[in-house]
C-alpha cells in the first residue's frame, strides 16, 4: 500500500495582525480524504502565544494514497474565545507533489509543512534514483542543457535562502515536471527554513552569499610539538570568525563562502555530496576564487567537486562559477569577490532611573546580537566590529560605565532618551557616548511607535549621491536574486535590473555621527529565543545605514502574506511598486519612499519591511553593490570591477 505523510511542522505568527497580541491558541488541523475527516495532533491543546510566536508542532497523519485522488488539508488557529487568528487551506491531488518544510502564508501567519511519500518503508523526499513502488516510472525526461546536450539532470543554486516557493522561481522544464508528477524520481531540495542563527555559528553560516570574501592569509599549521614547551592555545571559533580590528581574517572552513545546490534532479544518476562527476570552475568575471575542502577529512582533489563547495576570493571582481557534468553546463552561480569591510561600533545600553525604563538586553546579549547581525551582513561583505577604545566620551555629561564586554557600555540617561523615543530624540540617544568614526548603537527601552523594534537614525548619502541621483544597476547573469527573466535555463537571458537606494539622514547636532536604536520590541528573551530577532533587526537597520531601502514596503504583513500567495501578483512587466500594479496593501512611509522598488523575493530579504526572522535572511548582489558605495566605512569598491577607489578604471 502506498502511503502519504502530511506533517504540520511549524506555525509562525507574524508581527502584525494578531489583534489580541497575546493569549492562548488552539491549532485545529484536519485532512479530509476519501470521505473521512482525520485530525492531526491535539486540537484541544492550548498554546500561550504572543505576537511573533513560533510553534513547533510536528503533527503528522498518514493516508493511503491509493484510496483517494484528493486530500483537503485545513488548519484553523483559534483563540480561547474561538476567534479565528489564522486559517490555512490547501487541496492536495494526485499525482502527489512531495515537499519538505515548504512555507504557506496567510493573513497573520506562516505555516511550515511537509508532504512526503513512502518508499521502501521510509518517508522522506527521496533521492533521485528512488522509484516509488506504487508508481510507474515513465522513463527519462528530455531536458536540453545550455550546451545543447540532452541530459536528464537539473541543478539549481538559488542565491536566495531560504529558497522562495517554486512559483517565484524560474519555471522548470515541463517534461521534467511531468516526469516528477508521474511518480518518477523526486528532486532533492536543500533549504534551511526553521534554522536559528546563533552567535556561535560560523560566520559563513548563510550559504550562497552575494559577496565571496577576499581572503589571502592561510591558516598556520599547528606548531611542532617540542618537549617541555607548552604550545600556544589554538584560536577559538570566535577569534577565527571575527578577529580583532586590524587583524586579517584567515582562510578557513568558517570564513570561506559556502556555495551549495538548492534543487537537484536526475532521472538516472546517483550523486553524492562531493560527487567527482560534478565539477565546479570559474567561467566568468574578472575576480578570482580558490576552492577549499568542505571538510578537512575530504579527499584531496575534491575541493571543486560535488553538490556544494567552499570558496574564497583571491582577486577582487565579479565571478561566475559553473557546475559541469561530463563537460555539460548544469548550473551557474554569480557573486562578487570583495574584501569584508569592518567598521568599529559602540553599543550603549541606555538605562533610565526607573527600572522599568531600561533595555532588557545585557552587555553580553548586545555582543551576541552584533555577532548574529554579522552573519547576515557577511552576505554583502560588511561586518560590525567592537570599538577597541574603552574610553568614555568626554563630551557626554551622563553616567557611563564600561561593562567588561569590548565595545559595550551602560549609560544612565533621562527617561525620554530610552523610553518612547521619537524620531527627534533618537538622534540624541545615539549621540550618547559617541566617538568619531565609530558607529553608534543605542539599546533603548522603546520607540514611540509601538511596532518599532529598531530604527536607523542617521547615516550618510551613498558615494553615488542621494535617492534622486543614484540608481544601482546590475546586468549580470544569473540575475540578482533571480529576478525574472533570470538567465537561469529555461528562463530568457537576464536583463538589466535597477534598484533604488535611500538618501542619507544627517544627525542634527553632528553630521558625522551615524547610528541606530534597538528596542525591547525585539523580544523579552534577548539571550534566548529572541536573540536571532535582535540580530536580524540590527542587520536590517544597518542595511538602511548602508543606503538599502525596503525590499517590499508594506505595512500590513497580513495583507502582504495573503495577497502574495496569489499568482496574480506576478512581477509587473513595467516594474514599479506593487501598490501601483495591484493595490497590494497599504504602503509604508511616504508612498514607498524608503523602498528599493524591487519586489522579489517576497518574504526572504533582510530588508523586507515586516520580515519574519525565520524567513527574511537574504541580501543580494544589487544590495552588495549599493553597500560597496556607502562611505560609512573605509574600503568601498567598484561594483563593476571590484577595485578599490582610485584603482578603478571603469567609466
Amino acid at each position, binding site marked *: 500500500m502506498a502511503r502519504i505523510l502530511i506533517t504540520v511542522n511549524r506555525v509562525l505568527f507574524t508581527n502584525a495582525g494578531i489583534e489580541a497580541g497575546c493569549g492562548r491558541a488552539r491549532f485545529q488541523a484536519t485532512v479530509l480524504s476519501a470521505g473521512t475527516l482525520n485530525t492531526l495532533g491535539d486540537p484541544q491543546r492550548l498554546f500561550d502565544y504572543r505576537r511573533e510566536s513560533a510553534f513547533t508542532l510536528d503533527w503528522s497523519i498518514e493516508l493511503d494514497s491509493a484510496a483517494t485522488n484528493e486530500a483537503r488539508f485545513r488548519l484553523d488557529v483559534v483563540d480561547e474565545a474561538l476567534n479565528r487568528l489564522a486559517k490555512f487551506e490547501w487541496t492536495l491531488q494526485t499525482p502527489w507533489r512531495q515537499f519538505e518544510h515548504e512555507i504557506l502564508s496567510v493573513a497573520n501567519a506562516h505555516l511550515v509543512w511537509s508532504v512526503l511519500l513512502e518508499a521502501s518503508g521510509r518517508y522522506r523526499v527521496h533521492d533521485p534514483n528512488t522509484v516509488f513502488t506504487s508508481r510507474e516510472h515513465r522513463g527519462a525526461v528530455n531536458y536540453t542543457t545550455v550546451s545543447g546536450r540532452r541530459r536528464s539532470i537539473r541543478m539549481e543554486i538559488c542565491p536566495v535562502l531560504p529558497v522562495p516557493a517554486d512559483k517565484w522561481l524560474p519555471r522548470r522544464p515541463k517534461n521534467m515536471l511531468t516526469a516528477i508528477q508521474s511518480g518518477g524520481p523526486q528532486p532533492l531540495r536543500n533549504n534551511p527554513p526553521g534554522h536559528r542563527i546563533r552567535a556561535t555559528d560560523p560566520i559563513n553560516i548563510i550559504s550562497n552569499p552575494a559577496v565571496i570574501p577576499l581572503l589571502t592569509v592561510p591558516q598556520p599549521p599547528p606548531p611542532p610539538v617540542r618537549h617541555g614547551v607548552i604550545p600556544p592555545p589554538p584560536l577559538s571559533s570566535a577569534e577565527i570568525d571575527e578577529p580583532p580590528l586590524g587583524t586579517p581574517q584567515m582562510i578557513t572552513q568558517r570564513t570561506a563562502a559556502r556555495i551549495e545546490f538548492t534543487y537537484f534532479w536526475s532521472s538516472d544518476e546517483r550523486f553524492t555530496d562531493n560527487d567527482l562527476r560534478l565539477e565546479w570552475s570559474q567561467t566568468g568575471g574578472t575576480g578570482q576564487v580558490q576552492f577549499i575542502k568542505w571538510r578537512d577529512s575530504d579527499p584531496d582533489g575534491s575541493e571543486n567537486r560535488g553538490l556544494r563547495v567552499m570558496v574564497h576570493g583571491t582577486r577582487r571582481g565579479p565571478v561566475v562559477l559553473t557546475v559541469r557534468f561530463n563537460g555539460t553546463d548544469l548550473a551557474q552561480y554569480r557573486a562578487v569577490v570583495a574584501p569584508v569591510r569592518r567598521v568599529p561600533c559602540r553599543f550603549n545600553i541606555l538605562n533610565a532611573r526607573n527600572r522599568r525604563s531600561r533595555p532588557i538586553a545585557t552587555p553580553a546579549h548586545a555582543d551576541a546580537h552584533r555577532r548574529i547581525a554579522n552573519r547576515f551582513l557577511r552576505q554583502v561583505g560588511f561586518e560590525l566590529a567592537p570599538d577597541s577604545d574603552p574610553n568614555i566620551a568626554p563630551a557626554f555629561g551622563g553616567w557611563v560605565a564600561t561593562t567588561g564586554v569590548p565595545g559595550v557600555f551602560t549609560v544612565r540617561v533621562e527617561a*525620554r532618551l530610552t523610553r*518612547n523615543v521619537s*524620531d527627534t530624540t533618537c538622534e540624541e540617544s545615539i549621540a550618547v557616548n559617541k566617538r568619531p568614526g565609530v558607529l553608534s548603537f543605542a539599546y533603548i527601552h522603546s520607540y514611540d511607535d509601538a511596532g518599532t523594534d529598531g530604527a536607523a537614525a542617521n547615516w550618510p548619502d551613498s558615494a553615488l549621491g542621494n535617492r534622486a541621483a543614484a540608481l544601482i544597476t546590475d546586468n549580470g547573469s544569473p540575475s540578482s536574486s533571480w529576478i525574472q527573466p533570470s538567465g537561469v535555463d529555461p528562463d530568457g537571458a537576464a536583463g538589466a535590473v535597477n534598484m533604488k537606494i535611500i538618501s542619507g539622514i544627517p544627525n542634527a547636532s553632528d553630521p558625522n555621527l551615524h547610528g541606530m536604536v534597538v528596542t525591547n520590541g525585539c523580544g523579552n528573551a534577548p539571550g534566548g529565543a529572541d536573540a536571532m530577532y535582535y540580530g536580524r533587526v540590527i542587520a536590517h537597520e544597518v542595511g538602511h545605514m548602508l543606503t538599502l531601502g525596503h525590499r517590499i514596503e508594506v505595512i500590513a504583513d497580513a495583507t502582504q502574506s495573503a495577497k502574495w500567495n496569489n499568482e496574480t501578483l506576478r512581477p509587473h512587466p513595467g516594474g514599479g511598486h506593487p501598490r501601483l500594479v495591484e493595490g497590494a496593501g497599504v504602503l509604508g512611509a*511616504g508612498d514607498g519612499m524608503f523602498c528599493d522598488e524591487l519586489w522579489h523575493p517576497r518574504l526572504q530579504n533582510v530588508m523586507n519591511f515586516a520580515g519574519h526572522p525565520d524567513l527574511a535572511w537574504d541580501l543580494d548582489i544589487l544590495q552588495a553593490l549599493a553597500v560597496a558605495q556607502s562611505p560609512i566605512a573605509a574600503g568601498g569598491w567598484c561594483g563593476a570591477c571590484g577595485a578599490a577607489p582610485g584603482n578603478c578604471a571603469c567609466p
Partner: protein
Amino acid sequence: MADDPVKTLQTSKDGPELVVAALQVAKGADGAAHEALRKSLQSPGFLLHLDRDEDYNGVRGRLRLASVMRALTANPSEHSRKTLLTLTRSEPFLQEPARIELLIEAGAELRPASDEFVAYWDRVCDPKEAYTPLVIAALLDNGTPPALALFEKKMADAAYDDATKIGWLRKRLLPHRYEPPVLEVCQRMIAGSAPAPLRPHIVEALFDFRPEWYKPNARVTAPEVAQAGGQAQAMVRAIGQRAIKDVELSHPQRAAVERVLERMKGTVGAP
C-alpha cells in the same frame, strides 16, 4: 470561554485564564461584570497575576493587559468609558509606566475627550518624562476640540524645543491634516497662538510632505487635499491664502502652498 468570568476575575491566579475572562467582560455590556473588572484593574494582585512582574520590563503591546485595554476602548458602552476614566485616578493602576501608556493610548478613542481625561493627559505630559510622544499622538488621534486644545497648549509650551514640536507636526498632525477640527486649531495657531518660528512649519505640515522628514521605520500616510470634504477644502484654502500673506514662508514652503491652492482650483468653494 469562561463560564463565569466575574468569578474567574475574582478567584483565578492564572494569567491566560484571567485575560480570557477580562476580555469577555470588556467586550460585553453587563454593568455588574464591568464593575468587577473595574475593581480588578485597580487591584495590584489581579494585575500581577494577569501579567508577570518581568513582563513589565518589555514593551506594553506584549502585555495581556494591552488586549483588555483594547477591548475596553473598542466597546462603546458607558461602562467601559467609566472604567477608563476611573483608571486615570487609580494609584495602583498607574504604578507601572506601561499601564500609564496603555491608558494614554486608550483615551484616543474616547470621543469627545472628557475634561477628566484631558487633565490626565496633561498631568503625564512632562518634558523630562517619557510619555509626551504618546500623549501628542493620542491627542491628534482623538481629534476632538478638547484634545486639540491641549495640543495647542503644548505647541505653545516653551519647555519643549522647536525640533520636537516640528516632529509632532510632521508625524502626528500631518496624517490628520484635513480633518476640520484639526484645521481649526491650525488656523488659531497660525493666527498667533503658536510661537512665530513654528508657524511656517504648521503651514508646511498642511501643504507638503517630504521623505526626508521621516526615518525608514515611520508609518505615515499623507492625506491628499482632493480627498478632503468640502468644509475642509474651504478651510485649507483660507489657511493657504492667509499663510502666503501673513506667514514668513521659505521658498519651498510657499511653493508647496501654491501647488495645493492651484490643485484646488475648480473645487468646492473655489473663487
